[in-house]
């Protein structure tokens, strides 16, 4: 007889590129809890992307905002409980833990269990209280100052010196190098989290994190320590591996002993280079977003927590297996519009039976072409190669998909579901090395076509196009001239004479080389002003001070020259397309961007019917003699309703996997045309929305080693 399902609610299923821990907690529960589960996701809006990922939640419920108060949260949970009797709730966001802790007794009376610390314990580990906690307990921590009044940030920042970490009182942190940057970042963090900011002296060293579960009596039920092996430029640990360091273990348990804690906890440490001393930099009163790693390491902390909640007094969990690693990549889904609308309107939605996860090496044509793709990582930003591979894999028409990566930290090298083989390529500016790498890959696994997917690669692939053709690798690329005139620097500055293309126009633009140039553009264009890097980065400035700081930030990021444009308020759209060798647009998908991550990239979207915009964009591409994949990004002025061109990207966008989902498989069309075959007919399905969330995948240490030392690896099954 099948065992009865246990219903458990999990929160924190959003977060986009700064993922919340709810999704990995739910996945860990699925993998390790010894009883079938009904997982109910509690979210604050329908666009909580992690809840929509296949196989995570059985149902989603929209909660009132925390600001509505404890009674509103309690009433909503009890309403959910009436329909779906919940055995337990695991809150996964810092701000919620306090609320659920206060509600714990009422929830218990209602039949819902939790394992959470008392309010006083949560207060004691707040970021603002950490220096005092460390002082009282002899815990080493970097010099940290809480500055509740934002106007005083430059003064305190100057006292501490630079570089300096500016931290929000709840979450968020950024390294700054001068008082101006400190003030700007502090204002942003204060606006988001309130209560000022923290200024912390950075400690250069290796970062370690320890996730723990404490029993009701404060003792340690289970503990997993991890070293962050790959940290991206926003300070997020994207790659990590379990460690077994006795000093770290001892210190973590000593700290836990001082906290009188119950439930999940994360401690963050830095061990300074050349020192054995561990600096505690943060305590989080919930599971971290890498928590699924604990399941792969044999010490599944979310499952242990739920077991302890249901039957307290479990024996201590066994130690995790050191060396087990994770990589944070992404998972993309196509969501029926009707389902999203239903959740928005009714606040409750069953997801039972919604979508299956693609199997390993799903859909492959035995006689299909072998296609190589670059841009296969989500380490810093989600690169388009992942979406291209997903679309090609979904088509069933491609034989093998070969990933071309730049290093062992390219997250895509662990995607067995997308890539059959992966090869390392060097700096594409070395054309001989580029051709040689592709020739080697072709010799080993056979490659019929290559789709470069990163902006900086394009000029190099165009330069070696004939050499690639000579060794049997086909491409579909624009000319160097078409690439040149569509770059931001040229397209807005006279390289394309026509400013109005019917459905869209070019915004007035000024080049900015110097601080004086910032002032000139501010005088000419007024505020708000967009300061844009030539390759990436675009920030709105609301004052001259803002504009100067943003221009300096872009300069520090390597942009010797920036562009200034008037800020346009409105919704953003994009058109992804592919043009044939006669520069005709063969197929296109227009989307409205509905969810954008902190870096401005699209994580949620809907296909839209914009024939005029697509037609005007096709005319533009014909005029610039474009060939191959391309994306145009637009903003629709909320007042004039006119589309303004924001950018032309000489490759597919990162959301292009969605095109495969909706039946307009642009990457497949590009491969067909590269191989000299006719483009096929698309069969659009306009009822699906695009949604992306972060997803941890298990990484084999041997994969890092193989990629780094042998220059490649294979996921193909013998």
């Amino acid at each position: 007889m099948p065992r009865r399902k246990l219903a458990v609610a999990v929160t924190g299923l959003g977060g986009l590129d700064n993922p919340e821990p709810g999704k990995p907690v739910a996945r860990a529960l699925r993998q390790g809890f010894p009883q079938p589960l009904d997982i109910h996701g509690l979210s604050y809006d329908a666009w909580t992307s992690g809840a929509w990922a296949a196989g995570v939640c059985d149902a989603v419920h929209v909660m009132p905002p925390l600001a509505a108060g404890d009674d509103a949260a309690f009433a909503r949970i009890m309403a959910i409980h009436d329909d779906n009797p919940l055995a337990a709730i695991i809150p996964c966001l810092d701000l919620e833990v306090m609320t659920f802790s206060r509600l714990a007794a009422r929830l218990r009376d209602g039949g819902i269990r939790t394992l959470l610390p008392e309010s006083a314990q949560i207060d004691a580990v707040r970021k603002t209280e950490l220096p005092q906690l460390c002082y009282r307990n002899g815990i080493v921590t970097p010099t940290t100052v809480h500055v509740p009044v934002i106007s005083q940030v430059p003064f305190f920042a100057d006292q501490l010196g630079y570089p300096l970490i500016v931290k929000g009182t709840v979450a968020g942190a950024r390294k700054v190098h001068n008082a101006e940057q400190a003030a700007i970042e502090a204002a942003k963090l204060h606006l988001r989290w309130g209560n000022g900011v923290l200024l912390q002296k950075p400690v250069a060293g290796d970062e370690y994190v320890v996730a723990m579960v404490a029993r009701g009596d404060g003792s340690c039920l289970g503990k997993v320590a991890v070293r962050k092996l790959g940290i991206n430029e926003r300070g997020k640990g994207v790659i990590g591996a379990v460690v077994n360091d006795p000093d770290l273990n001892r210190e973590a348990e000593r700290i836990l002993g001082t906290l009188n804690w119950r439930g999940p906890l994360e401690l963050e440490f830095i061990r300074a280079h050349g020192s054995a001393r561990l600096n505690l930099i943060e305590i989080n009163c919930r599971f971290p977003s890498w928590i699924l790693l604990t399941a792969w390491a044999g010490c599944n902390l979310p499952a242990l927590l739920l077991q302890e909640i249901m039957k307290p007094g479990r024996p201590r969990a066994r130690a995790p297996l050191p060396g087990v690693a994770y990589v944070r990549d992404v998972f993309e889904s196509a969501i029926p519009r009707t389902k999203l609308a239903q959740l928005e309107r009714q606040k409750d939605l069953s997801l039972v039976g919604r979508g299956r996860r693609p199997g390993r090496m799903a859909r492959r044509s035995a006689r299909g072409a072998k296609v190589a793709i670059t841009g296969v990582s989500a380490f810093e930003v989600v690169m388009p190669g992942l979406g291209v591979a997903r679309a090609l894999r979904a088509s069933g028409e491609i034989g093998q998909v070969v990933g071309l990566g730049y290093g062992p930290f390219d997250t895509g090298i662990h995607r067995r579901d997308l890539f059959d083989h992966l090869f390392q390529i060097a700096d594409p500016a070395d054309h001989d090395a580029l051709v040689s790498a592709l020739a080697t890959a072709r010799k080993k696994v056979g490659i019929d076509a290559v789709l470069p997917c990163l902006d900086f690669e394009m000029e190099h692939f165009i330069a070696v196009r004939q050499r690639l053709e000579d060794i049997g690798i086909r491409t579909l690329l624009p000319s160097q001239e078409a690439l040149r005139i569509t770059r931001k620097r040229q397209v807005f500055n006279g390289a394309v004479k026509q400013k109005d293309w019917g459905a869209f126009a070019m915004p007035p633009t000024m080049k900015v080389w110097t601080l004086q140039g910032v002032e000139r553009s501010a005088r000419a264009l007024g505020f708000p002003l967009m300061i844009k890097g030539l390759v990436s980065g675009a920030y709105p400035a609301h004052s001259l001070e803002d504009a100067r700081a943003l221009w300096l930030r872009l300069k520090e990021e390597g942009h010797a020259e920036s562009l200034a444009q008037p800020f346009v308020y409105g919704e953003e759209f994009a058109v992804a397309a592919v043009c044939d060798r006669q520069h005709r647009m063969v197929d296109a998908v227009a989307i409205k961007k509905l969810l954008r991550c902190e870096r401005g990239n699209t994580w949620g979207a809907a296909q839209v019917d914009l024939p005029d915009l697509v037609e005007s964009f096709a005319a533009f591409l014909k005029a610039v003699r474009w060939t191959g994949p391309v994306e145009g990004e637009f903003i629709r002025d909320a007042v004039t309703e006119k589309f303004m061109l924001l950018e032309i990207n000489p490759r597919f966008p990162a959301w292009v996997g969605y095109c495969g989902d909706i039946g307009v498989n642009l990457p497949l069309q590009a491969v067909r045309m590269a191989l000299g075959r006719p483009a096929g007919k698309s069969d659009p399905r306009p009822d699906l929305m695009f949604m992306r969330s972060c997803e941890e995948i298990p990484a084999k240490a041997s994969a890092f080693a193989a990629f780094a030392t042998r220059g490649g690896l294979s996921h193909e099954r013998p």
Partner: protein
Amino acid sequence: MRVRWRLSSRARLEEDGGGARFLLDTYNAAMSTCNDTAWTLLRQLKRGASVHGLARELVARHDAAPRSARSDALNFVRRLRRMGLVDAAS
């Protein structure tokens, strides 16, 4: 008396199906990929070996010249000691 060295319990040797071999430091997840020579020495150290024994292995298996083999083996053990990955067994 010759000192016998043994790979520390914090060190783990791993090998994948494709032939990649590496040494994992379980204290900090640092990975060092290994060539054939290093692998030979690490396998010996796992069982416990003196520098003399390691050098002999290099001569026998990798055609190393006896003098350079001894110096290579010594440097290898010193490096592992600095990393905390070998202990003196006797």
